[in-house]
């Protein structure tokens, strides 16, 4: 008996899982790699202080005003920037797809619960990744101009031409990243207070970082870092390095044969893996071209509320529109203190 059918064919099964994009994890805020200081709406005053003392010969006489003890405190106002991610969501275009099955009955119902649970849910991690990138790479247009205007030179106390090239190539953002702030800031705690080059330590004579050179390049950074920062045991200095350094380090460490030199210590694996260089933990973050050797709390992200990063407001658009809005708002600034103890490879 012949079977007669017309009208084309259609797939009768589908994969339940909708593959999600892979988002870089936001370790900086989630794991507190650096100091996150909350509670600031639009601006925050950052204070730095120090005491300078000078020894003098013993005397049994009355204490005099010697000027041998200088107590210093200064304030720098840091402006925070508010920014947002927002859009309309119109799921009507999902009609005729698998998502239609999870829309409620009734012509007003055009929201797919499956789409919300499997696709819309990715907005938060995507924002998390974007913010993580913004902390470590990028500059405001104004800061890019200021950095380009600095006079480059090879000695400490001047920016390298390489750093200017990296800064010029950075994405233009609403908030300047930590490397940008290290390069140029208006801190009143610098040797020369006010807007200008940061007081960071530059790593001279650097070369392209590859698996063959990474140990030597980290050695240069370690070698030039201020001894006080290296020896600060109350809060050990850590290294902040580009994500790709993890691969270069492992390739370097795992070279076969006589070339093998274990310059980096790798302990654990997966989530608990830690990699260190000369006892200093390496944090892999989305830096581009730069590496930082610093006491972690000297690198700061000032925010209104850290959980703003993952807070999304979703609601119906007014006046009977069958669309929803989605909005995330955050307030942030990157800042650095104790600048003369921060070593910037690539600076």
């Amino acid at each position, binding site marked *: 008996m012949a079977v007669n059918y017309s009208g084309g064919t259609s797939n009768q099964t589908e994969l339940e899982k909708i593959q999600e994009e892979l988002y870089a994890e936001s370790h900086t805020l989630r794991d507190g790699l650096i100091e996150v200081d909350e509670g600031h709406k639009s601006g925050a005053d950052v204070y730095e202080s120090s005491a300078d003392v000078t020894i003098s010969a013993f005397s049994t006489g009355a204490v005099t005003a010697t000027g041998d003890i200088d107590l210093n405190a200064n304030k720098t106002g840091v402006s925070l920037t508010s920014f947002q991610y927002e859009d309309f969501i119109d799921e009507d275009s999902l009609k005729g797809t698998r998502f239609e099955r999870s829309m409620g009955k009734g012509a007003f119902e055009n929201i797919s619960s499956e789409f919300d649970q499997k696709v819309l849910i990715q907005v938060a991690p995507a924002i998390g990744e974007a913010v993580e990138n913004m902390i470590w790479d990028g500059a405001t247009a104004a800061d890019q101009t200021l950095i380009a205007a600095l*006079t*480059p030179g090879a000695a400490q106390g001047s920016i390298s*031409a390489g750093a200017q090239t990296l800064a010029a190539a950075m994405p233009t953002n609403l908030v300047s990243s930590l490397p940008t702030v290290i390069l140029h800031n208006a801190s009143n705690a610098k040797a020369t207070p006010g807007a200008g080059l940061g007081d960071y330590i530059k790593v001279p004579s650097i070369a392209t970082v590859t698996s063959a050179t990474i140990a030597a390049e980290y050695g240069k950074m370690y070698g030039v870092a201020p001894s006080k920062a290296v020896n600060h045991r109350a809060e050990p200095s850590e290294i902040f390095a580009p994500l790709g350094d993890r691969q270069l380090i492992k390739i370097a460490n795992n070279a076969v044969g006589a070339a093998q030199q274990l310059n980096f210590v790798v302990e654990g694996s997966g989530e608990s893996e830690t990699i260190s260089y000369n006892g200093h933990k390496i944090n892999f973050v989305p830096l581009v071209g730069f590496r930082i050797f610093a006491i972690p709390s000297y690198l700061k992200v000032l925010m209104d509320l850290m959980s703003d990063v993952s807070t999304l407001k979703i609601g119906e658009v007014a006046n009977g529109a069958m669309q929803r809005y989605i909005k995330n708002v955050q307030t942030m600034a990157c800042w650095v203190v104790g600048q003369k103890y921060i070593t910037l490879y690539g600076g």
Partner: protein
Amino acid sequence: MAGKKFINPFDAGVSYSDFLKSLPKDKTVSQHLKGKCTNEQIKWIQTELKNYKKK
């Protein structure tokens, strides 16, 4: 005729502009710095000057 005064680019306060002005016309950066800076320093300065001239 006296030559130009040697300026070490690694000295504090020396800009690349100062250094390039001090470079004799008949010498490359490498030739000029040979014996005064390490090979590693010379290589870096060459890269730096390439970046500087691109600006």
